[in-house]
Each structure stands twice: as C-alpha cells, then as structure tokens.
C-alpha cells in the first residue's frame, strides 16, 4: 500500500501542545516538509522564540536553541557566523519579532544575515493570555485594549514585510496565510524559497504567516479564520514585497 501522507521526519513524535484551531501546527509541518525535501535536517539549527511556540525545540528533529524574547535573530546571527555551512531558521511571533525584538529583526535584515525567519502574525500575545501585539488591528479588543485598540494612545499596527522590504539586505519578504488549501500551498512555496535562498547565500529571507488565535480572539476556529479573512487580510495584504531570487519580482 502506498503511503500518501505521513509525519515529516523533521518533526519529532512529540504531541503539539497548541490550542484547537491554531495554525502553528500547519506552519510547523510546512517547515518540516521543507527540511525533509531539501534534505537539510542534519545541518539545520532552529531557534525557538518566547511565546506559544517556545516549545518548538521539542517539535523539530533538527538541533534547536531556545532564545530570549525577541533575540532570535541575534542568536541566529551567532549560530550562522560560527557555522556558516549550517542552515539557521528562527520561528517568531509578532510580540517577539515586531515589539521586543524589532531592533534585532531590522538589523539582522539590514546586515543581510543569511538566515530564514518564519514570522507568525496573529495580532495578539497568545501565551501570556491575549494582550495587544504590535500587529493588533485598530479597534481590536484584547486584554490590554479592552475598549479596542485606540490608535490615539496605542498607535498603529506595524506592517513588517512592507517595512523590511525597504532594506538592501533583504532577499525575500513575503506575506502568506494558511486559511485554505490554496493558501497553504502558496505558504509552502514561500517557506521553501526562504530556505533555498539561504542555501544559495542570498541573504535575509522572511515569510510572514498571517495566522489566527481562536482562543485569545474568543472565537471558534472557523469563525477565527473568517475574522482573519475579513479583518487581517485587508490590513496585511498577501503577496511578495521583495524577492531578489531568480524569477523574483525585484532584483
């Protein structure tokens, strides 16, 4: 009997601890499939963030390092400079990457650090219980914006791909989502390209995955995806913001 679907080797047997309807699981799988397809598990080192994905070090079969909140790109820089032959990826949420770690993100990007960044944007701090994130939408109700995000006092969300695409060191900045089979396929292609870029030495590649957080958004999984489609995607348009690879939109 032919096997048509199995757990990628790059994922361990550890059971995901993520909430029902959370998209971390899909994104983990896409990364693991990529590692398998590129046959790089033996030379890949992943960096787990602080946040819901902190235990990513238990889920991926490659070597893993757990970084302080926001510092994953700096830790990745150290790992890559020490062993340039290895493939280094970070897995970061919006608070980690775009709030406390914004300096590390921007500077790793502008240095053209040859690493791969998977950025999960669900517009909320998940693990700490649903506080406002730098990417929370105007008017979005969170634990720390109980009357909705008031842009007069809490400012505006940050569009990370747009911001980073202005930097010369960036090879790929692409925003995807995993709300449908079609979009999962696009996300997989983008993640694979972000790893291939590193193998080719092209520089900093970031894939932003617009995601849902049913638990902290207070919605059923399907409603959360609907909310994502109706509210997140208009604010965070999907697409390629920079791509210097062969066949890419800008060189």
């Amino acid at each position: 009997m032919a096997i048509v679907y199995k757990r990628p080797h790059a994922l361990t047997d550890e059971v995901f601890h993520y909430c029902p309807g959370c998209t971390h699981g899909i994104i983990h799988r896409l990364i693991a499939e990529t590692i398998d397809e590129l046959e790089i598990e033996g030379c890949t080192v992943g960096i787990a963030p602080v946040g819901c994905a902190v235990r990513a070090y238990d889920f991926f079969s490659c070597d893993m390092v757990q970084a302080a909140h926001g510092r994953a790109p700096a830790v990745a820089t150290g790992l890559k400079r020490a062993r340039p032959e290895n493939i280094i990826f970070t897995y970061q949420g919006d608070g980690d990457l775009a709030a406390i770690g914004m300096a590390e993100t921007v500077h790793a990007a502008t240095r053209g650090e040859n690493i791969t960044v998977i950025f999960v944007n669900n517009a909320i701090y998940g693990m700490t219980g649903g506080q406002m994130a730098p990417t929370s939408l105007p008017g979005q109700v969170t634990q720390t914006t109980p009357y909705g995000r008031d842009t007069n006092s809490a400012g505006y969300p940050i569009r990370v791909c747009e911001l980073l695409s202005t930097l010369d060191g960036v090879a790929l900045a692409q925003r995807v989502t995993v709300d449908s089979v079609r979009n999962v396929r696009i996300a997989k292609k983008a993640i694979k390209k972000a790893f291939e870029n590193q193998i080719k030495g092209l520089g900093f590649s970031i894939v932003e995955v617009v995601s849902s957080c049913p638990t902290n958004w207070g919605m059923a999984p399907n409603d959360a995806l609907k909310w994502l489609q109706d509210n997140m995607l208009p604010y965070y348009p999907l697409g390629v913001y920079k791509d210097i690879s062969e066949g890419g939109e800008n060189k």
Partner: protein
Amino acid sequence: MAEKVLMKGNEALAEAAICAGCRHFFGYPITPQTELAAYMAKKMPKIGGTYLQAESELAAINMVLGASAAGVRAMTSSSSPGISLKTEGISYLAGCDLPALIINVQRGGPGLGGIQPSQSDYWQATKATGHGDFQILVFAPSTIQEMVDLVFLAFDLGDKYRMPAMILLDGMLGQMMEPVVLPEAGKTVVPDRPWAADGHKNKRPHNIINSLYLDPLKLEQTNIERFKRYEKIKGTEQRCEELHTEDADIIIVAYGASSRVCRNAVAAARAQGIKAGMIRPITLWPFPVDTIQKRLVSAKAFLTVEMSMGQMVDDVRLAVNGAKPVHFFGRTGGIIPSPPEVLEQIELINGGI
C-alpha cells in the same frame, strides 16, 4: 621565550583571546573598552574570524550565545552600563550551561555615571549578572600580563564547567600599557562540545540548548545540580595573591586597580614599621574565602579598599564572620584612591589595635 611587548590592557585582552582560539567577537561601542573592539575589528577579518558590531549590547550577548551554542569560543566586551544590558543574555547563558567570555572594563555608576575607572560593579558581577539562581566565574587581573593569563584561564574554566566567565577590570587597567609576553599559540585546546547545536548530521538525536523548564521540580533539580558544580568550583578554583601576610597585623583586601595602589601603601607602612600585608583576590567568584580564613588567627584587623562605596567588603565580612574587625576605605565615581590615603587608613587602624 616570546618577546616582551608594550600593550594597552584592552588590546592585550583582545590579542590574548585570539591566541586562546577565540574567533568570534560581538560588541557594541562604549568607553573605556573601545580599543578592545577596535583591535578585534582590525585582526579578525585577517585570520578568518568574526568581528561584528551589533545593534545593541542585548544583541551582542545573544550573538555570543548563538555562537557558543554552535560550539565555538565566543566573547563580548563592554563597560558597566553595557553590562547591565547584557545581563539578560548572561542569565540565559548560565541557564543553558554555555561557556562565554564577557569583559567588563568598569566605569563609574549608577546610570550613565562617568567614564573614569571604577569598581562599583562588584555586586553585579559576583551576585547578580542577571535574574535567577546562578553564578559566573569572575576574574580580576591587576597587571596586563595577568589579563593575558586570565583570558586563557577564563576560556578554559568556562569550557570545563560549562559556564560564562567574566574578566572584571576597570578603565585604568584597560587604558594603561605595560610590558607583556603573549603566550605561544596552542597553549590551550578547545575541547569537543558534544552538546552543541551544530547540526546532528543524522548521526545523533537532536541537541537542544534551552533554559526553560515548565515543570518546577525539573527546574529545581537542574538548579541543584548546577549548584553542586558551583560547590566544586568553590573548593578548587579560588585564587589570590598574598603579599607579606605571614606576619601582618593589618591585612588589606583589594583587587585590580585598587590593589596596585595598596601595594604602594603596604610598602610605605612597612617602611614605618607597621606590619601591613595584602590579600589580593584574583578570582572574585569563587571568592578566596579559604585564604582569608587562614589568616584570621594571625591578623588583628582587615581593611578592604575598593573604588566603590563598599561592595567586596560584604564578602570579606562573611569570610571573617566577626572574628576580627573589618574596615573599609573607598573612593568612587571614577576616583582612584591615592597611596597616602590608604596609608592613613592603615595608620588609623594600627593606632587602635
């Protein structure tokens, strides 16, 4: 023997680190350690190493963490305010059992403080270079030659015990020049690091470098194991220099720059017939408790001299444990005490014993 050369403290530290096999330096500019980073920036590209000026001290220490996790000798250097920022990463290094060398060329504080020499980060270095239950090795050189030697020791012991090590000096020692003999290459061997996150090559289970333990019992057990290691270090790695302590009535305890001033003061006191001596801690953690306790019977009083409001004196008092009086003299804010000032303190104490 290799040639004696004249080198600035900051440059000697850099050259020694290179000799000790360090090829990865991550820093951020701050006075008065600048020459160290500048030396690395000049040398590293020529020997295939990495010099990287990070966007902040936070980033620099986490780059060190990454490089150390990958299994190479890595270091950073800074001065007091910058070390405060690095404490986050130092705590993670300790929690991940990673070696790394951190150099603190101290300046006056708190806050932006000043840029002149100081020893007011003793508490930070020995008690709390970050949150949580942990210690790091702390070395306090007093000459440029000793700086070079301690760079090797700090890397070697950091590797041996899998923990961060700090060389704690001050602006005076960093800026001054003295003759120094650099060790031959190959004096130190970088050990294998089977624990490193350097790619499992499909030959072993994956390595995880991590300081998170969601189960409090596991975290407690990990900390207990780590403190067993610390106890072993306390038993074997205490280092200090004794100067005229055998017959000393008054024993000065001073490290680094202030110990140099005290050396003059001890000589001047001896010239007057006062039996003064000095214990100069070379390791601040582990603190040389054993040597101080060995002198408790013969000494009549202790005098701690620091370029601070009085920090190491706490450890001297703990070691003396009330057996003899412990006095303190310090200048702070970037002032280096003068030998006559210290001599005056010795004379005062001598009048009272």
